[in-house]
């Protein structure tokens, strides 16, 4: 469509550019503000006196002697051992995404290839399942999990996250598989393959864009999850987001808010890399999947 854009009137071009720049400022400014502020002390970044303190570090200079300080990062990573939470998060996210995609791909393929009514109703049921507020689900798990000694372990959180994210995964993957022409696997089966063989030899090689896109969305869900991990994991197995929440303090005691700010910047960094790396895939995956409602 580049040749199309060349023929646009300058007014329209100006409008598009200014709209886009405005949007980018709105979208990214809070993040850069946070990044900048994570090198200040709390009194500056969360100043009730003067917001420009966050820019110039009025109190940061008074308290640490410089306009920038790495105390937030040091406190979170060294003193509070944030890296333990990072490892736990890595384990949870890796397995959640891997398991979600494996079982979701199988089911999504089947749902896209079945023309019986029950396939439709299964998808609708999944949608209704997604409507259930996760907080209700999680508080329902607590008692049985404690009773059967499942509470607190990483695998439990992984299985729960997989299950809770399954409806979304299913919807995305099903729509994606619908866009892979049926002729592909049908011709394989005419050659004598079973459905599973057709899936393995014909579908798997062409499904990656859609799977990777879906994987990125489930990764974001698992990575940013608070409700499930905060209530199901024990302190030793804590992941990053509940750990960040624990920096915020309670009603009666003050927390280390700057640890939380530094952690949030740290937590966003791997996503930076990931999105930069996969952005082509996200787009091409959604294109191929076209996630039709």
């Amino acid at each position: 469509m580049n040749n199309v854009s060349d023929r646009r009137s300058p007014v329209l071009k100006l409008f598009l550019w200014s709209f886009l720049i405005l949007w980018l400022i709105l979208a990214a400014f809070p993040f850069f503000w946070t990044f900048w502020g994570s090198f200040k002390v709390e009194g500056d970044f969360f100043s009730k006196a003067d917001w420009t303190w966050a820019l110039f570090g009025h109190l940061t200079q008074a308290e640490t002697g410089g306009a920038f300080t790495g105390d937030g990062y040091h406190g979170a990573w060294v003193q509070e051992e944030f890296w333990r939470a990072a490892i736990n998060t890595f384990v949870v996210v890796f397995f959640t995404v891997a398991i979600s995609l494996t079982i979701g791909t199988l089911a999504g393929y089947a749902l896209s290839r079945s023309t019986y009514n029950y396939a439709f109703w299964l998808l609708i049921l999944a949608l209704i399942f997604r409507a259930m507020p996760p907080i209700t689900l999680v508080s329902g798990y607590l008692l049985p999990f404690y009773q059967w000694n499942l509470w607190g372990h990483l695998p439990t959180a992984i299985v729960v996250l997989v299950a809770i994210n399954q409806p979304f995964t299913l919807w995305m993957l099903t729509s994606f598989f619908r866009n892979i022409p049926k002729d592909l696997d049908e011709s394989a089966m005419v050659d004598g393959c079973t459905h599973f063989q057709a899936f393995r030899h014909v579908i798997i090689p062409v499904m990656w864009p859609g799977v990777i896109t879906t994987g990125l969305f489930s990764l974001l869900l698992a990575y940013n999850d608070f409700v499930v991990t905060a209530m199901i994991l024990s302190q030793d197995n804590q992941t990053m987001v509940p750990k960040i929440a624990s920096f915020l303090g309670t009603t009666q005691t003050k927390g280390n808010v700057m640890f939380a700010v530094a952690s949030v910047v740290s937590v966003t960094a791997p996503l930076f890399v990931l999105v930069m790396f996969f952005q082509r895939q996200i787009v091409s995956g959604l294109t191929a999947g076209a996630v039709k409602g």
Partner: protein
Amino acid sequence: MNAILRSAVVSALMIAGSTTVYANCGISSGRVSIVGNEFPAIQTVAKGAMDCAGEGIEVKSNLTADHQKINVAGLQGNPAEYTSAIIANSSIVALMNEDVIRPLDDLVAKHGADIPKNQLITINGKVMAVAFMANAQHLTYRKDVLAELGIETPKSYEDMLAAAEKIRAAGKSEFPIGGAYKAGWNLAQEFVNMYIGHGGQFYKEGTAEPALNNDSGIAALNMMKELSAYMNPDYLTHDSNATGAEMEAGNVIMMNMWGSRVGKLQDDEGAPAEIASNIEVSGPLMVGDSGTPATTLWWDGWTVAKNISDADAEATFLAMKNGISPGILNDETMGQAVWMIEGYTPAPVNQGVFDSISSGAVAYPMLPYHGLMHTALGNELADFLTGKEDAAKTLADVEAAYATAAKEKGFLN
């Protein structure tokens, strides 16, 4: 900031290191598992209990801000996941209501002779918990501003209003009063304080029937509204973090604040030295003429689970007792709380809490259904403060919302 914190870590590590020789807690075997909130004082207690770990003795802890969401479920199983829950006077009732904690009389008789009597929380003649720290909300103010304007330290909310008017008129601050009036738990807490200060009773004697739609209730609400006129217009979103920040920024001159948070206001972080060094504490504020201060007293303590073996219960009792023994106090932990432990020497900043205790303030109600009342208050009171309803209508709504919840829970028919 971090010099202090760093030395804290170092000293904590040294303590941990020095106790590889097992602390002598008198436990031979058993399982101890603690659930509780995560603030530093509780971490100190848990650490003290964990020093008892050793051959055949497993001690672990799960300290999280979400402890109230998981402790009932964690104590309900058989055997229970947790052998001890650390709770406050407001939250022990949830465990009592579900009947998941055990009376400690026999264990106190056997091992607890040296625990001071007043630390034992006794309900219906049975020891249900052992308290180890106290807290209260009390006046916190800027002594330089008050001195400059020749204002005496307020003793009551009426004084505070008069002082606020003077401060505003002098142009020192447009919104000189601070308060954690965030809709929800905080706002309800301020009403509980103010209503108790007016001598109000929440329930008909000995029942769960609500009885706060009365003159005291209306007076309490009106006082809150008068105070809010001197607060930042965003006061319904301000929790104790925000109020504290307002004071550190020099906007708030007087406020009712948790004793446990004042130390962080006075330190060299978050505020210019000329503000921080002038933040001062005083006793709780009175209101009206009831003679009871408009504040509530709080304690934190530990309990022992019911659904565990007697051996584990004994091990838990001994480990927790070690967790609150005088041995846990050192330069670092001393300032973490107002400890109810022998050997504790209060700092000047703790005077507010001690004044609250000695001034005849009452403890936060430890009633089976008061949590429901607190929630109902938190949800309904904002309507009065935003001017949507009058006081009587708001209180009627509170009673109706509470009654519905209490009926569901079986406290009312």
